[in-house]
């Protein structure tokens, strides 16, 4: 199995999503509140996995822009769950050493006096191994 195929398979496994169910209606992208911040758009997550173009996908800034708000998951008429795909891609990155989007050093400057614990632990879960 080629590396790309392998990676695509990993994403399918981690996310539990079958990208072939997608009918390309674009409702996920129509829904996404972070759409404008993303370079690769939610409906494209699906086609990137289907086309095994994982190298591009994991380089995408979208990994760090998705809010996991599940709006795309809720509204997808085909039960494809683009939000789970992008999280799986993010997992691929953070599970590799050095792929962390958040480093301990930078945390102090990101905090303010009101920052709730919840924000820190959530961000940690999402961004770090």
């Amino acid at each position, binding site marked *: 199995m080629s590396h790309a195929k392998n990676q695509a398979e990993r994403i399918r496994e981690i996310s539990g999503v079958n990208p072939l169910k997608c009918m*390309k209606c*674009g*409702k996920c992208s*129509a829904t996404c509140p972070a759409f404008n911040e993303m370079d690769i758009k939610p*409906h494209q997550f699906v086609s990137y996995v289907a086309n095994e173009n994982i190298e591009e996908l994991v380089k995408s800034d979208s990994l760090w822009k998705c809010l996991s708000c599940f709006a795309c998951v809720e*509204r997808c*008429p085909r039960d494809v769950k683009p939000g789970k795909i992008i999280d799986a891609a993010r997992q691929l990155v953070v599970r590799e050493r050095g792929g962390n989007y958040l480093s301990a050093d930078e945390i102090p400057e990101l905090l303010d006096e009101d920052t709730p614990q919840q924000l820190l632990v959530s961000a940690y879960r999402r961004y770090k191994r």
Partner: protein
Amino acid sequence: MQRIGVFVCHCGSNIAATVDVKKVVEVIASEPGVVHAEDYQYMCSEAGQEKIAIAVREKKLTGIVVCSCSPRMHEATFRKAAERAGINPYMVEIANIREHCSWIHKDINEATEKAVILARAAVAKVNLNTPLTPGESRVTKRALVIGGGIAGIQTALDIADAGYKVDIVEKTPSIGGRMSQLDKTFPTLDCSACILTPKMVEAAAHENITIYTYSEVEKVSGFVGDFTVDIRKKARFIDADKCTGCGACQEKCPSKKTPSEFNRGLGTRTAIYTPFAQAIPNVPVIDTEACIKFKTGKCGLCQKICAAGAVDYTQKDEIVTEKYGAIVVATGFDTISLDKYDEYAYNQSPDVITSLELERVMNAAGPTHGHLERLSDGKAPKEIVFIQCVGSRCSDDRGKPYCSKICCMYTAKHAMLIRDKYPDVNVTVFYIDVRTPGKNFDEFYRRAVEQYGVNYVKGQVGKVIPQPNGKLLVQGSDLLDNKQILKEADMVVLATAIEPNKDVRKIATMLTASIDTNNFLTEAHAKLRPVESPTAGIFLSGVVQGPKDIPETVSQAGAAAVKVVGLLAKDKLMTNPCTAKADELLCNGCSSCANVCPYGAISYEDTLVNDHGIRETRRIAIVNSALCQGCGACTVACPSGAMDLQGFSNRQILSEVDAICR
């Protein structure tokens, strides 16, 4: 021992590509009872059937096994061939080596091995077959059509024109159905009422047609050719013979606040009402839940005003029992509930409406008298957004997995009509795919784009966001531009998925007609018998079988009528000889069988039997073969094995089990 011939069909390459048919012939030839085995390209062809005839003659066959497609496909063909060759048709068994074998397996060894086993099972069964003779049953020369929409009306007219009596049962106070609610129709823009009303009038006037409106089918018994149906005629509280249809009662009725079903709840009606002006019959009904007289005992205004003295508050529901030879189901459709799709804000804003509601808005007799206006404030819209596939093509549990088929076309129609009548209104259509197969259909859609300047955007809408200023912000995808767009609209129209009428499940159960997971009735064959239910004597007309538009519905309605006429034209029908039969020497007379018989086909008689020299009178089960439909429930209820099913006997099935497990 039988003398069995086995015929293995190649079905072109459908079977032969995955099953080694020569090998099947070779192996099966040595089975007990088999005296002849051969293979052929197409057993169902005339030449193939001739092969059976020749083998019967030459090898003196007494039984036949055809290894071919499903018996549901060609069992009848081969039974007839056997009969022509001089063998009892029930000496034929089919081994299904296509649908159950070659089409689902890839490995040729595996498929061949299985084909042999299936053939063996069939041979084992034929070894125990006995000749059976069908009985005859009579045909009541009258048809019932359930549903009085365009499908039901057309079917009834075609049956009636062929000279047979036909009754229409319609649940609502008038025939006409969904088509009567439409304003215009595609692909030519005829006024719906203008083409439907003449048909309604014709049906009402036809000497062979009886129409029961405000009525429902309550009970069905019997079988093809001889159904008995109870029809509940709900009390209208109006004497139809006296009513002149003057409408004075409706003008005076003080209870005016009930949402009008005909206007999809967008307008109101009175408690005593006819659903629309052209209603047939033009006799009102009283809605007892809204009527002040029924609720409080006071009022009675309609009775006082009625010059004909037709209002009768004491009227009761009436049950009419009638016999029919055939039943057509034409119960039509409704739009799905949008409660689970509130990202489109249907429940949050009156300016978000369904396409069927738009039909009423555009119609001169509708709530806005045909003026295109926002239902919230009555203002004329300047921007209208249409959203396609709302609830269609959904594999989640909110919507329907199928394409509703009519939406692309009616949306093009709406867009075009709006642009034509109100050129200053901008129309945007969000679509996933535009599906317009059909004569002059794609041309119609292209006209909407090219001639009328309707803006088609490829992409679904994610959310409709009501704004404080009363506008609707539509957040959608433009997939071709790879953009998320925000469009401020005055009105949003949802192409809501259609689903079979809610009552159809109940009706299907009464008729024992198969129904699919989407509540569409199943056809006897998806391609070759599209207007028949697998249940004999039940026929399908219109959307009850699957989504379809008016031209298709009318064609199918005619097709269903022809099938009904073909049935009613017969004087006698052959009955299924695979009925239950009790062995009088084994029967205990315990009544277990009669307890489970759904047809009341089993009775008990004191019978004098001679049990190996012992002569005594015993209580013995007797099966009425005209009533027995051959389900076999009784055979398992019988502890002694006295009750058996001809054609599917205990020993036959066991021999199949043995052959498979060998």
